[in-house]
């Protein structure tokens, strides 16, 4: 699916909605499946009807499994989850079925399912509704895992794709799940991620990191909300004479090894900023990437260490924040490379 029409400024969620709407208008085999889909995507429901915007029961295992089967049968399902946490309920369809199709069919039978999954915390919804989990998902061969940090994104793929939608960047989800009409709650939303220009015919290739800022002293690699936190930290560090390369990976599988290695070769220091769990995830993987490339940089990571706490002040401290990122970068910069 490629964005066709000219797109001016969009909010994060609306950019995805618009891309889906364009794709559905172009390709009649695309069906959208999800709990409350006719309500949550009312404009699409009104435009394309109940046969293409399908209300699913609260049955993740069934509708994710059915999406895999429908894709095998020739449809191109887009499955909307309320949150990536709920993927756990239907994980078998993703882990053992969609992801295995390329291998089991020697690449002859694609499984074009797009799973749109809001992810992440920062609005006080607790440990069962604010996880990121992309490390766990990106570990699975056969899946493509995309995590945009700005509204400019594109979707064109023939295999199972998980598109994460960081809720903190998505005004619609933040209102739906966080505020609920209240003006009495606030969030630390990175403005550059929440809205932005989406160029015409925009197609970001998967597995291509974006260099958001250049510097020689330390490489900061992140994804999603962490990119914005890292950029803010890099701004503070620059005032102290520490210049950071900041990379937005944009997709985890495929992963842009070359961009990470090139930057770390230059700086000799790698800091990974990840809203997902610390152990056995993206941060460790990037350590392996640079080691395998023959580099031995100074290394540190700022990640989520434990179950995401509900209380807002605890949550803010647990998620990678500007202070923790800057402090880790300072410690790294003090070490000789």
């Amino acid at each position, binding site marked *: 699916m490629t964005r066709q029409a000219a797109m001016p400024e969009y909010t994060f969620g609306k950019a995805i909605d618009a891309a889906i*709407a364009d794709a*559905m*208008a172009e390709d009649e085999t695309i069906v959208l499946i999800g*709990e*409350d889909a*006719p*309500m*949550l995507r*009312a*404009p*699409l*429901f*009104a*435009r*394309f*009807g*109940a*046969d*293409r*915007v399908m*209300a*699913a*029961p*609260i*049955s*993740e*295992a*069934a509708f994710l499994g059915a999406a895999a089967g429908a894709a095998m049968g020739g449809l191109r399902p887009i499955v909307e989850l*309320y949150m990536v*946490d*709920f993927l*756990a*309920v239907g994980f078998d369809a993703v882990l053992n079925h969609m992801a295995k199709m390329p291998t089991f069919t020697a690449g002859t039978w694609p499984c074009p399912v797009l799973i749109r999954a809001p992810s992440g915390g920062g*609005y*006080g*919804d*607790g*440990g*069962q*509704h604010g996880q990121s989990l992309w490390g766990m998902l990106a570990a699975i061969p056969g899946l493509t895992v995309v995590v945009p940090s700005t509204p400019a994104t594109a979707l064109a793929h023939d295999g199972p794709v998980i598109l994460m939608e960081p809720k903190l960047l998505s005004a619609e989800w933040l209102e*739906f*799940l*966080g*505020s*609920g*009409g*209240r003006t*009495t*709650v*606030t969030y630390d939303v990175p403005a550059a991620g929440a809205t932005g220009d989406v160029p015409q015919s925009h197609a970001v290739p998967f597995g291509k990191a974006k260099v958001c800022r250049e510097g020689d002293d330390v490489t900061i690699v992140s994804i999603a909300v962490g990119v914005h936190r890292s950029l803010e930290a890099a701004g503070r560090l620059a005032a102290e004479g520490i210049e950071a390369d900041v990379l937005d990976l944009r997709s985890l599988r495929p992963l842009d090894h070359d961009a990470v290695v090139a930057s770390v070769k230059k700086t000799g220091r790698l800091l990974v900023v990840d809203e997902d769990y610390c152990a056995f995830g993206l941060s460790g993987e990037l350590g392996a990437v640079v080691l395998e490339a023959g580099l031995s940089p100074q290394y540190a990571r700022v990640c989520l260490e434990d*179950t995401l*706490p*509900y*209380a*807002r*002040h*605890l949550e803010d401290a647990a998620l990678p924040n500007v202070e923790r990122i800057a402090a880790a970068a300072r410690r790294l910069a003090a070490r000789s490379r």
Partner: protein
Amino acid sequence: MQPTLYRQMLRARSFELAVAELWRQGRISGEMHLGTGEEAVVAGVVTQLRDGDGLALAHRCAPPLVVRGVPLLPILRELLGKPDGLGGGRGGHMHLFSRAHLAGSSGIVGASLPMGAGLALAAARLRPGAIAVAFVGEGALNQGMALETLNLAAVWRLPLLVVCIDNDWSIVTRSSAVSAGTPLARASAFGWRTASVDGTDAETVYAEAGRMIDELRASRTPGPAFLLATCPRLDGHFLGDPLIRASHRPHEDGRQLIGEVVASVGQDGGGWLDRAKGMLRLAGVMARARAGADRESARDPVRRAREAMTGNTDTRDRIEAEVGQEIAGALEAALADDAAGSDA
């Protein structure tokens, strides 16, 4: 009307109205799913639990915990995100647990059924005569884990009472639109003993649940029971439910949604019939949401229980005064350190 039932219903309702206010003030973050409308079911069932019984709850878990006797202050402190809350401020409103009451909850739809089966298994092995109760919504009965538990609990002959609270809403979709068969037929098909009650009538719930619980306690291998209780959902899926807001105040809160829908219908897409059907369905869902959320409705169980107390106004007045005092006291204690602006 048993005064105890009215008292417990009023405690649950008053507690949640206080919680709703704290949420509106922004003192509680994230979503807030209230159990308003479910009080007769909750009081009718939970007042019959004893020490050693298990209680498996879903995302509307505060009312059963209040009725079960979990102290109010640590619940409120948890919702406020304080370190002396039930879960140290780290759980939140969908993740309230009380080990002393063998009560657990979950924000994953359907998860209360397998949890209840496990609690029932432990009860059967470790505490003969004890049972477990699992609350679940009719929408959750479409989850695989829930349907699988209908089988598991039956073949293991567990002392489990599943109380299915049927408000005909699956989040913001009518359950009847996404569910085949009926909850009762599903449970019957797996050999469960079943009954259905008017879930706005606490006395009826109490009697029917009591009969089922007695049977579960009396046998060593009783096999599970399924009680379907219908009741309204007075505050939407959660506070701030956009469907409720849009249907109550279409000119203010519904304008954006309606505008987007109208704009989208004008573009290329499905056939005109599809689009017309789509618009009608959306309008129908919004109208239902408005009707279901009517607090003045005769289906409000607390209102109904209050009317049933008219023959006993002295007791009623005393209960109302005492409950009001209890909730106000808990609220005051919960907010005691807030005046100083303390965050911890």
